[in-house]
């Protein structure tokens, strides 16, 4: 029945159509699967993009927080800090840098370094660090203008960036060396003065010993005089060393003080008794004017005794024969303190020298001829009274009329006890 050509043709067309339909159907199925896969991939990518975006947001927050933290660290530093980016724009300048800038540090961010930093040498230094290879950090000293003055700074430079990049961000930290330089100068002055003052008695000692060895003292009386000089100069040297050590221990906060209730009247009486023979040699009278109240204080008795002895000994040394020395003590209820003074009818001190007498190694010019001293006694007194006993020491004097050295120390606890 299907042997006729028409039937065969129809059959072939139908079969082909079916095959094509099957093939088409199969293709459609593959595409659908591909489309599903593509959709899944797109979804994954979208999710990943979302995650990345979230992560970027989080990191942005973290970066801003970190930056604020770092800037806060810079702001509490006393050193000047200037941070510039690779383009030479200021990222941050702290308050310590205010003297170096022409505008307020808080307004410097975003401006070009060259427009805000006053010292052109500093601008050049930072520019060099930006363009050079990133380094671990460089440090050197440089004189830089600060508020119109030239100040020595220790400059630390740290460039931040990759070695392949031509320009880098730079962190500059500048430490003002003025204070250190001043301390070094004071230290050097002190060593120089101490060395001079220590050499003076040492010179006498060594010279007199050599004179004795060489037989320059030709009689017993001269020899005795030489031994006397050697002995007094040795004592002077010892006192200077003791005073120096005590002053430096107090200054370093290493002095142990024995704080107890001290009966001040007793200290004064003991000091006057011990100094009377020296006063008698110069026909000086020592008068005591002690208020009839309880003069107890809380303090270190030995040290306060040393202050009284030093002041009394100075009064005896610098008062001409036949003069008068008055020791007075009273309490001041208003300031709750004990007030002590030693007045003399001695040489007196010129007004421009009264404050200097408490400085280390300072000696009133015309006093050298009158008596020897270490130049340290009054400085030690000041330390004992002011540093260790929270008191105050001073002098009132008229040249040629005499001096009154005084000190006051808190006596609150002693007075309460008395009341």
């Amino acid at each position, binding site marked *: 029945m299907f042997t006729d050509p028409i039937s065969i043709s129809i059959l072939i067309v139908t079969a082909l159509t079916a095959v094509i339909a099957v093939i088409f159907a199969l293709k459609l199925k593959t595409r659908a699967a591909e489309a599903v896969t593509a959709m899944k991939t797109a979804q994954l990518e979208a999710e990943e993009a979302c995650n990345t975006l979230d992560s970027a947001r989080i990191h942005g927050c973290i970066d801003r927080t970190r930056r604020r933290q770092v800037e806060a660290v810079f702001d509490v530093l006393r050193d000047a800090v200037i941070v510039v980016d690779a383009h030479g724009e200021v990222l941050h300048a702290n308050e310590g840098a205010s003297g170096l800038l022409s505008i307020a540090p808080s307004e410097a961010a975003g401006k070009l370094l060259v427009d805000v930093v006053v010292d052109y040498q500093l601008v050049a230094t930072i520019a060099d660090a930006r363009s050079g290879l990133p380094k671990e950090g460089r440090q050197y000293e440089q004189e830089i203008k600060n508020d119109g003055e030239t100040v020595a700074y220790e400059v630390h430079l740290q460039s931040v960036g990759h070695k392949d990049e031509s320009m880098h961000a730079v962190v500059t930290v500048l430490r003002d060396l003025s204070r250190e330089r001043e301390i070094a100068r004071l230290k050097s002055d002190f060593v*120089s003065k101490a*060395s*001079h003052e220590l*050499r*003076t008695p*040492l*010179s*006498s*000692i*060594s*010279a*007199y010993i*050599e*004179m004795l060895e*060489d037989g*320059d003292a030709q009689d017993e009386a001269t020899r005795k005089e030489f031994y006397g*000089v050697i002995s007094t*100069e040795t004592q002077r040297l010892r006192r200077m060393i003791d005073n120096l050590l005590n002053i430096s221990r107090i200054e370093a906060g290493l002095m142990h003080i024995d704080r107890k209730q001290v009966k001040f009247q007793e200290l004064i009486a003991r000091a006057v008794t011990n100094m009377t023979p020296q006063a008698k040699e110069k026909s000086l009278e020592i008068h005591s004017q002690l208020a009839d109240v309880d003069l107890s204080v809380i303090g270190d008795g030995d040290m306060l005794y040393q202050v009284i002895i030093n002041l009394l000994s100075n009064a005896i040394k610098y008062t001409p024969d036949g003069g008068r020395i008055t020791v007075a003590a009273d309490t001041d209820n208003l300031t709750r303190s004990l007030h002590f003074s030693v007045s003399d009818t001695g040489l007196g001190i010129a007004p421009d020298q009264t404050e200097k007498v408490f400085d280390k190694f300072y000696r009133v*010019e*015309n006093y*050298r*001829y009158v008596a020897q001293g270490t130049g340290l006694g009054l400085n030690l007194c000041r330390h004992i009274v002011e540093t260790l006993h929270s008191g105050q020491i001073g002098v009132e004097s008229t040249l040629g009329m005499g001096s009154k050295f005084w000190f006051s120390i808190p006596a609150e606890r002693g007075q309460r006890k008395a009341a």
Partner: protein
Amino acid sequence: MTTAHNILIVDDEAHILQVLSLKLRNCGYSIATAVDGEDALHQAKIDPPDLVITDVQMPYMNGLEFAHALSTNKETAHIPVVVLTARGHTLEASDTNFPNVRKVLSKPFSPRGVAELCAQLLKDVPARNIGKRDVA
């Protein structure tokens, strides 16, 4: 008639004046003393000594100012000066660079050494008749 070189010793430390005066008198010199540069300059102008030994750190006029004043005065410029100081370590060479300063000695010092130096510096200077200065 006795002749001797005159030496002016300047120091604000009494012991140094005493020890040097005695040592140099024992060596046959005639000695004058002063306690600061001002006093010493005054004395040197009135009666120029053959040699000056001076401390540096003194009140009113220090030893360097004194040496400089001597070097700029026609009457005293020729007098050799020995500087004797406890400040030796802080003095720069330029501080004592005056034509009349022959030697800078540091304290502590040897009186014997000072006497030897005086003999050396004065060996070509004729000694004078002793005027008002004394010799031990």
